[in-house]
């Protein structure tokens, strides 16, 4: 039927459909960045007992944009490393808007090493617009810090789980995201660049950010479809901030399930399996044949109902 419509109407209908998808996706972006959305420490508070926060990179700096610590999670001692945003103006500045500097990734690496030595499974919480783009960060080796953090994660012997809890922005997010399982909250986003950055570069106009977001689809469901996240974790209706206790419980259940499934795999193969997981990522054509598209069995536990 659509093909019989005169061309202008066909264009109009397509544009209206696009507009609808655009507003859905933009809603996800806004929820992921919501002012009262729970941050890493809010979850740590609710997920573990006997929490001890660990500070500093042992080389002169404590980056407040990354928090870390150990605590007892349902019978296991685990280490948590995550980005931390601030809620009011003062705290936002203190946390540098959740944008870590090289020292923050060095802090993460130090805690990963500690966890590996002492046998604490690692949970990371991803919530950052990106690594901090500053002159000193660059001179301090921001790029290498991110690469080395990823490399350190591929080598851990303990089970590792990453949770994208808010904004998963670029390399600064992935720096703590190379884990055995990757969970993503229903209303979180995960992308290679912010919608604003993408709009500025490809549309040459920051005001096209809604279009950019709609084009690169940073939502949890889409990340799951592409095989980048293993489980999409349901949030209380309206978003995690509506009922933080319940959101933390749901996330805790998903983390516990992830640990169980990782521990069911042979421990001596853990590194190889983790490496294999990331090496499978990507979709391309090889001699004209599409390779790498994921065929999901749509495990009901892996995706909340729409």
């Amino acid at each position: 039927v659509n093909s019989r419509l005169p061309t202008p109407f066909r264009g109009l209908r397509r544009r209206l459909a696009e507009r609808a998808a655009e507003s859905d996706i933009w809603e996800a972006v806004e929820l992921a960045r919501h002012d009262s959305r729970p941050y890493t420490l809010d979850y740590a508070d609710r997920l573990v007992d006997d929490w001890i926060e660990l500070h500093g990179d042992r080389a002169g700096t404590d980056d407040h944009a990354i928090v870390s610590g150990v605590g007892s999670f349902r019978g296991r001692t685990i280490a948590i490393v995550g980005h931390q945003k601030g809620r009011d103006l003062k705290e936002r500045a203190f946390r540098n808007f959740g944008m870590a500097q090289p020292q923050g990734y060095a802090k993460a690496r130090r805690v990963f090493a500690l966890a590996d030595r002492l046998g604490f499974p690692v949970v990371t919480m991803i919530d950052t617009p990106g690594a901090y783009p500053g002159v000193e960060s660059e001179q301090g080796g921001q790029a290498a810090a991110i690469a080395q953090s990823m490399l350190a994660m591929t080598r851990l012997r303990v089970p590792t789980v990453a949770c994208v809890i808010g904004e998963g922005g670029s390399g600064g997010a992935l720096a703590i995201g190379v884990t055995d399982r990757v969970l993503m909250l229903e209303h979180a986003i995960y992308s290679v660049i912010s919608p604003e950055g993408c709009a500025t570069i490809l549309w040459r106009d920051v005001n096209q950010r809604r279009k950019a977001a709609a084009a690169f689809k940073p939502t949890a469901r889409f990340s799951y479809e592409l095989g980048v996240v293993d489980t999409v974790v349901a949030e209380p209706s309206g978003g995690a901030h509506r009922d933080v206790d319940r959101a933390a419980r749901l996330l805790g259940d998903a983390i516990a399930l992830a640990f169980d499934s990782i521990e069911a795999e042979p421990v001596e193969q853990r590194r190889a399996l983790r490496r294999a997981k990331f090496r499978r990522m990507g979709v391309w054509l090889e001699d004209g044949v599409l390779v790498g598209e994921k065929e999901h069995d749509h495990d009901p536990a892996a995706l909340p109902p729409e």
Partner: protein
Amino acid sequence: VARDEETEDIQVEVEREETPREQPPARAKLHPNTCPVCKSHYREDELRAVLRVCTVCGHHFPVGAEERVDQLADPGSFRPLAEGLRSADPLAFTDLRPYTERLSEAEVATGLGDAMVAGTATVAGMPCVLCTMDFTFMGGSMGSVVGEIFTRASDVAAERGIPLVSVTSSGGARMQENILALMQMAKTVCAVDLLQESGVPYISVLAHPTTGGVIASFAALGDFVVSEPGALLSFAGPRVVQETTRETLPADFGRAESSFEHGLIDAVVTRHDLKPKLGQILRLCAGGTLVPMEPNGDAAVPPPGIVARVMRFLRSSQHGDPHTNGGPA
């Protein structure tokens, strides 16, 4: 009413798309063979012959992926791998133009399948796996194909026990593949992890520019990291840093010389010195024990026959290639 407004809005947009978009004020366009520093102009064959380095002021012009192979690999020694890979469009991505259109245009313009070329070669007589990037192919951006080519190249190096050499030139991850492009950072790091576990050396050469997701993944992880003079090597671009911090950036912000001063790279090497320098590093690496190390520093049992395989490869590449001058003692 809302619907009418929306319709009106859309029509306005359609009109706007028909008129040519305003371009940002462009700097006076120089011919690609004119030196942007001293304005010396070169014929194409002249520029090629001087390795695309300005003979007057030393400015390094960009080099394409295949020409870079010609500059570094001994004549006739390059055997390409992973040639049949092309980008798909998993997100059905369209910005001002569809991703597929940009891809075909880049293929036509460069004659390449994507932004990276890889193969086995000898460099100054030393066998290695060589990957080079092409900035003219969509800004050298890393999508699924670049990630896969690098991973395969790295695997070949790990398996055969021959060093990996990469020459990068990239704006970073390819936005048109969004999250899959981001994951190529993790994928290539995993490849380097296996390479390091196998005790195989990795030399990373950073050409102008190497930024974003490429400098923040495999390119940063070389055992040896060298750069060409003047190359921009920052994670975030100067404009982003400027806009975020509102500071005046130092004139050499993110440049190779500044990175060297801050201990981020081992050396700044001019293009004319690059091949001899690679030869020197590769010879030094061949003098190592070739026994893989575990991360805790214990020597691991070498994989069965690795030494034999390396020797076989060394011999075969020398015999198979009459142009190779000399080899490891």
